[in-house]
C-alpha cells in the first residue's frame, strides 16, 4: 500500500478486504472511504480495467440449492458485464479431507447472464453444453494423493459444494483470481424421512434403508464389488425413490468373520440377506429385486439360480457369469490365483479384465444364467478395464436366447464408459487405490470422463424405470 496524496491511496493487488478494513479500524487511514467495488480495487495497480465504469453486483444462483445427487441443478449468473469471459468453478472437500475441483469457461451474453443449462463451456474440465459438468468432472486438486476416488461413507449428511464465479478465463490452480460471486449447494443421498437401519443380525452385516411412510415397499438387495466394505449410497438413493434397499458387506468389513481380503461367507449368507428382506414387515415379499456391480454380478446370478428364491428382477453392471475364486458353496477357495491373468501398465496399475474373459473362466464356475426366471438388465461399459463386461454380456445374451428367454433380456452398452457405473453426476476415476494391504495396489477401471458421465446419467434413469416396471406393477 502506498500513499500518493492525502486523498488518494492505491492498494497493491492481493490486499484482502479484511486487511483494508482492519487498517481503517485502526485509524491508519481515517480519511478514506472504501469504494464498493472491492475486486476493482484489487486490480487497480498497474492494470487498465477492461470493462466499463459501472458498478456491478453479480448474482450467482443454483436451483435447487439442496438437491439429491441424481437431480439436475440449474446454475445461473446474472448482472455481469456483457459478452464477458467468466469461469465457473466448483470445489468441495471429500470426507477424507481431499479437495476436489472442476471449472469451466463461459462467456456472458448480451444481457450479462450465463446459464449452465443452455450455454456452452469453451474450456476447462469439460466443453460443450453440460448442465452438470461441474459435478461429474470434479478431480482431485493439484498436489493431491494418488488414486483418489469420491465415495461417500456417511450418507446422512450432504456433500457441500461451493460454486463460484471468477473473472476471466482462468483455473483454480492459477492463483490470483477475482471472485465475483459464489453459492453453496448441498447434495444429498437421502430425502428427509428415509430411515437408515444398521443390520447386524442372522450374521448379516449390512444397512437397510426404508422410504418414509407405512409401506409395504418393493425392495432391492444391493451388492457391490470385490473391493469389499459396505457402500450405502446407492441404497440410500433407492429408498429416496420409494424402494426399500438392503446393502450388504461380504468382504473387508470389521464385523465379518475371517481376514479382510478374503470372502469368508458363502451362498447361505446371501440367502439370509434375501430372507431378511422377505420377512420384513414393511417390505412386499413378492417384489424384491437384486442389483450387483462387478463381483456382485456373480453373486446376483448365484442368488437367482441357486438359492431357491425368485427375485422379481435383476440388474447386473459390468460383471461376469462366473469367477475362478468361488467354490461350490460360493466361498472364496483361493486368493489371487487369478493373478496370471493380471495385466500391469507402465505405472504398475493392474487391469483385471482378462480374469473374467469367458475363455479364461473355469467352466464349472460359470452360473447357469439360462435358468433365471425374471427380467434381467445387463449394463456394460465398453471401456471397462476391470471386467470383460462386453464378452460376458454376449455370453448371457446367447444363453438366454438359446433358452427362448430373449424377451427377459435387456442390454445397455455404453461406449467410452468404464467399470464403475454408479449414480449420476459423480466423478469417475479411471484408476484408483483398490487395496492398501498387503501392499498398495491401484486398479484400472477404464472410462473417459464425458462418456462415462453420460453413461451414468442414462443408466441410472433406466435402472429406476426398470425397477418401477418390474417392482411396482
Amino acid at each position, binding site marked *: 500500500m502506498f500513499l500518493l496524496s492525502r486523498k488518494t491511496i492505491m492498494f497493491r493487488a492481493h490486499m484482502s478486504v479484511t486487511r483494508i478494513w482492519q487498517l481503517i479500524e485502526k485509524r491508519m487511514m481515517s480519511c478514506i472511504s472504501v469504494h464498493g467495488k472491492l475486486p476493482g480495487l484489487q486490480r487497480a495497480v498497474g492494470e487498465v480495467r477492461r470493462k466499463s*465504469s459501472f458498478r456491478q453486483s453479480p448474482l450467482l444462483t443454483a436451483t435447487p440449492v439442496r438437491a439429491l445427487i441424481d437431480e439436475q441443478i440449474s446454475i445461473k449468473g446474472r448482472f455481469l458485464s456483457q459478452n464477458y469471459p467468466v469461469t465457473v468453478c466448483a470445489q468441495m472437500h471429500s470426507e477424507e479431507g481431499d479437495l476436489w475441483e472442476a471449472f469451466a469457461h463461459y462467456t456472458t451474453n448480451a444481457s450479462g447472464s450465463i446459464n449452465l443449462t443452455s450455454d456452452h463451456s469453451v474450456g476447462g474440465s469439460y466443453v460443450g453444453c453440460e448442465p452438470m459438468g461441474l459435478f461429474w468432472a470434479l478431480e482431485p486438486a493439484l498436489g493431491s494423493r494418488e488414486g483418489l476416488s469420491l465415495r461417500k461413507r456417511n450418507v446422512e449428511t450432504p456433500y457441500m459444494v461451493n460454486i463460484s464465479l471468477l473473472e476471466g478465463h482462468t483455473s483454480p490452480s492459477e492463483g490470483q483470481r477475482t471472485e465475483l460471486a459464489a453459492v453453496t449447494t448441498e447434495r444429498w443421498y437421502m430425502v428427509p424421512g428415509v430411515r437408515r437401519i444398521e443390520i447386524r443380525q442372522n450374521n448379516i452385516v449390512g444397512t437397510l434403508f426404508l422410504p418414509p*411412510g407405512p409401506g409395504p415397499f418393493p425392495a432391492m438387495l444391493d451388492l457391490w464389488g470385490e473391493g469389499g466394505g459396505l457402500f450405502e449410497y446407492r441404497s440410500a438413493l433407492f429408498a429416496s425413490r420409494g424402494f426399500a434397499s438392503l446393502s450388504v458387506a461380504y468382504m473387508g468389513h470389521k464385523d465379518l468373520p475371517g481376514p479382510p481380503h478374503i470372502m469368508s461367507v458363502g451362498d447361505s449368507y446371501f440367502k439370509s440377506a434375501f430372507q431378511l428382506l422377505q420377512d420384513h414387515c414393511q417390505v*412386499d415379499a413378492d417384489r424384491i429385486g437384486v442389483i450387483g456391480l462387478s463381483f456382485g454380478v456373480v453373486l446376483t446370478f448365484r442368488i437367482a439360480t441357486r438359492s431357491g428364491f425368485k427375485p422379481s428382477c435383476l440388474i447386473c453392471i459390468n460383471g461376469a457369469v462366473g469367477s475362478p475364486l468361488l467354490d461350490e458353496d460360493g466361498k472364496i477357495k483361493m486368493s489371487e490365483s487369478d493373478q496370471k491373468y493380471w495385466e500391469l501398465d507402465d505405472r504398475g496399475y493392474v487391469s483385471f479384465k482378462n480374469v473374467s474373459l469367458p475363455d479364461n473362466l473355469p467352466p464349472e464356475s460359470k452360473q447357469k444364467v439360462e435358468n433365471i426366471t425374471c427380467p434381467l438388465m445387463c449394463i456394460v461399459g465398453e471401456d471397462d478395464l476391470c471386467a470383460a463386461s462386453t464378452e460376458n454380456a454376449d455370453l448371457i445374451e446367447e444363453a438366454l436366447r438359446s433358452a427362448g428367454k430373449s424377451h427377459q433380456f435387456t442390454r445397455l452398452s455404453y461406449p467410452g464408459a468404464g467399470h464403475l457405473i454408479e449414480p449420476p453426476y459423480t466423478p469417475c476415476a479411471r484408476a484408483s487405490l483398490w487395496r492398501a494391504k498387503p501392499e498398495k495396489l491401484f486398479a484400472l477401471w477404464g472410462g473417459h470422463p464425458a462418456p462415462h458421465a453420460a453413461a451414468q446419467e442414462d443408466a441410472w434413469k433406466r435402472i429406476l424405470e426398470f425397477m418401477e416396471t418390474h417392482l411396482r406393477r
Partner: protein
Amino acid sequence: MTQAVPPILSVTPSRALVDEKFQVLVENLPPGCPVTLRSLHRSEDEDDWEAYGHYVSDHRGVVSVSEDLSFGGMYTGKEPMGLLWSMRPVPGSRKGLRLRKINVCTPMLVNISVHSGHEGFRDRTPLASALAERWYMAPGVKRIDINKQGVQGTLFIPPGPGPFPALLDMWGGGAGLLEYRSALLASRGYVSFSLDYLRSEHLSADVEFKYFETAFNIIRNHPQVIPDRVGILGSSLGSMVAFNLTAYSTIIKPRCIVCISSNHYHPPGTTLKAGFKILSNRTNDLSKINCPMLLVNGCDDQNWPTVETVARLLREGGKEHLLSRLAYPGAGHLIEPPFSPHFRATKFIILNSKEKVILLWGGHTKPHSDAQEDSWRKILSFLQLHLYHSPSVKANL
C-alpha cells in the same frame, strides 16, 4: 400375484426454501378413487398444525395437487400450495396461535400423507407419507448476532465474496425479534439486518432516530455491503419507522424502501412506545421521499387503517413517480413471506400496559395467501431492480 402395491406419494423438491413451490403427486391409486391429502407440522411451540384437501384420482390413478382440484377440506380448487397456506391448529389446540419460526437455522418439517376416502379420513392410517423440509436459510448464509454501538439485532450475509446490496429489516410490535424474513432475503442475495428495536431491555423508552440511523450506518459500513445500495424494508410499525427515516433523516439515504401494511396515521397511544415523540409530531409528507417506494397493503386490514391513509398520501402529490402500490382485497395486516398460514386474529400483548388481548388482523385465508405469494414476488422484483440492477450508473475510479 398378491396384494396391490400401495400408492406412492412424492413431494418434489423435498428440501426447498419457504418461498419455493413444491409438487405433491400420488400415483398407483385405483382410478376414480377418493383420497385426502393432509399436511401436518409440529411447531417450535409444540402445537400441531394441519391442512387437508379432498381429491379424486384420475383414470391413471394419479392425483397431482398442482393440477387437480380439491373438492373440500381446508381449501378448494386448484391450489398447488394449499397444504401449507391453509394450515390451522388441529382441533383442540389453544386459541389465538400464530406460526412463526424462531430458529431459522433449522428447517420446518412438514409431513404430507395420503389417506383413503374423504369423510373421517383421520381415523384411518395413511396409505403413504413423505416428509418435506422448508428452509428459511440457504446453505452458506451466515447468521451473526449484532450488538454494536448500542444497536442490537441479527445480521444475515449471503455466501460469496460480496459486496452485496443490503436491507434494514424491521418488524412491528408484539412479535419480538423475527429473523426469518432477513434469513430469506439473505438467501436471495441481500445482506439483511433484522433490527431489534422494541423488545430489548437495554433499549430505553426513548428510541430515537439516532438508533435507526446508527443501525443503517452499521450495515452501510460493513465491508461486504455496497454502501449506496442499502434499502429499508419494514412491516407494520416497522414500515412507519422506515417511512419516517427515509423522509426525515439527514444522515441516511436509503436506495429504496418497502413498506408493508404501513401506517401513516398515528392512532392515540396503544401500540407505540411513548418515546416516539419526534416521529409523532410531524405530519407525513410524501414530498420528502427521494427514493423509490413500494407500499403493500391488505384492504381488509383490521389493525390499522392503512388503505385510507395511503390514499391521502397520494393526494398530497409531488413524488408519485417514485411510488408503487400493491393493494390486495381480502388480505389482512400480517402480509408475510408466501405459503405461510394466515391468522385472522391472534394473541397479543400490548406493549405499554402488558395487557393480553386477541388482536384482530383481518383478511380471509384464500385472498390473504394469494396476496402473500404475489407481494413477495413483486417485492423481490422491486428490490432486484433497485438494488441489483440499477439504471442509474455512477462513474468509478
